[in-house]
């Protein structure tokens, strides 16, 4: 009975997140990008002038809200717990490569689901890669892969990441001239600050309460035959699909999809890298932001790694180009990421056997 309740809660939270994403796209965010962790972290990196890609620079309040929503609800529920020290540097590098893979494909796992619900078949190729990456990660987990135990940390350490979000919000509202903003392109398309922030807070709270994770659903199904977490993903997909069908926004096909490309091999391998690194981290990019809000400083550093990955993706021409594909430097970076993940897993599995 309890299990059924959990599934209903996850599906309902998924539906709420789906509605937020759909509404955000109506209210100004780019098409099929109502909510995307990778894209928005990339926009924030641009806004902070960590990269100079002028089309993707905006201080996305959705990300700020996501962390703060999880922070507030975990404080209220007594679940805020400063902890860290489980291979922070390795997590930062894994976060970096999560981003390299996602930006090759042009979207995090959440946007992959949103793109699928819009009829973008390139996302189906990405999903196949994502599942392949998760399967590889599950294989490693079953062989004993682990990043080690975490330890209790001070309250100041746990609060640091949420506090950074408040600082970013104050800068956005009071000192926007410090930041870079896109004049055109996806970065220039956004809902009003208050709307974006409210949506982020709501999604953050819902995701914290339900432990929603785009990688976790498929991972748990493979590891334990447990589909509970997957109900969240299914709820997001079905809600956006229905909303898109009603409003006539589904366009089924590979070509002409918003902020997407049809470089199939690299859509597959990009999301494979993101799926594998997500399982090795213990959660998808969204889950990392939520955990960072709950006081998990390992996840906070993973988010920093994601920010660095996003900057590198645009500074070194690694990101996928909409309507074209993944440049050769980006292909090499995706392969390097996969090689890093496999090498790290082999080292960790060997360590576990000693």
């Amino acid at each position, binding site marked *: 009975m*309890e*299990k059924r309740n*959990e599934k209903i809660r996850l599906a309902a939270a998924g539906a709420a997140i789906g509605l937020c994403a759909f509404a955000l796209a109506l209210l100004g965010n780019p098409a099929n990008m109502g909510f995307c962790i990778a894209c928005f972290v990339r926009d924030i990196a641009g806004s902070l002038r960590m990269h100079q890609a002028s089309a993707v620079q905006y201080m996305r309040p959705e990300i700020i809200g996501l962390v703060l929503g999880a922070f507030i609800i975990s404080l209220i529920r007594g*679940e805020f*717990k400063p*902890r860290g020290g*489980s291979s922070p540097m390795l997590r930062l590098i894994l976060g970096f490569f999560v981003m390299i893979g996602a930006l090759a494909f042009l979207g995090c796992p959440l946007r992959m689901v949103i793109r699928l619900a819009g009829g973008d078949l390139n996302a189906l190729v990405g999903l196949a890669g994502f599942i392949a990456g998760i399967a590889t990660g599950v294989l490693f*987990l*079953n062989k004993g892969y*682990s990043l080690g*135990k*975490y*330890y209790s940390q001070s309250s100041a350490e746990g609060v640091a990441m949420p506090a950074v979000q408040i600082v970013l919000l104050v800068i956005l509202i009071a000192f926007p001239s410090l930041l870079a903003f896109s004049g055109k392109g996806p970065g220039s398309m956004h809902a009003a600050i208050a709307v974006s922030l409210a949506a982020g807070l709501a999604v953050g709270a819902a995701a914290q309460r339900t*432990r929603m994770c785009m990688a*976790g659903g498929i*991972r*748990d199904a493979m*590891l*334990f*035959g*447990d589909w*509970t977490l997957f109900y969240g993903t299914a709820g997001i997909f079905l809600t956006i699909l229905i909303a898109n069908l009603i409003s006539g926004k589904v366009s089924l096909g590979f070509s002409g999809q918003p902020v997407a490309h049809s470089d199939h091999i690299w859509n597959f391998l990009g999301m494979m890298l993101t799926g594998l690194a997500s399982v090795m981290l*213990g959660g998808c990019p969204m889950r990392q932001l939520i955990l960072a809000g709950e006081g998990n400083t390992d996840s906070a550093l993973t988010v920093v790694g994601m920010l660095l990955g996003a900057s590198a993706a645009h500074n070194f021409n690694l990101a996928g180009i909409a309507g074209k594909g993944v440049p050769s430097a980006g292909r090499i970076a995706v392969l390097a990421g996969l090689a890093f993940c496999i090498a790290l897993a082999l080292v960790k599995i060997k360590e576990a056997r000693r």
Partner: protein
Amino acid sequence: MIIVDAKGLSCPQPVIETKKALASRPEEAAVIVDNIAARENVSRYANAMGYDIDVSFDNGQTRILLKRR
């Protein structure tokens, strides 16, 4: 009794350790965790495997006692 110490482990590892411990179908086992996601996930898994669950709290740790139904 088999005791699984999953303190300091993030999901899904506490569940993987529980899965290993339950592979031999013991009458009883205890899993010690220290975060809520681990408590929920271990309880859910053990339930699905046909174990009753009794959760007790002690000093920031959570002890999940599993008894085969």
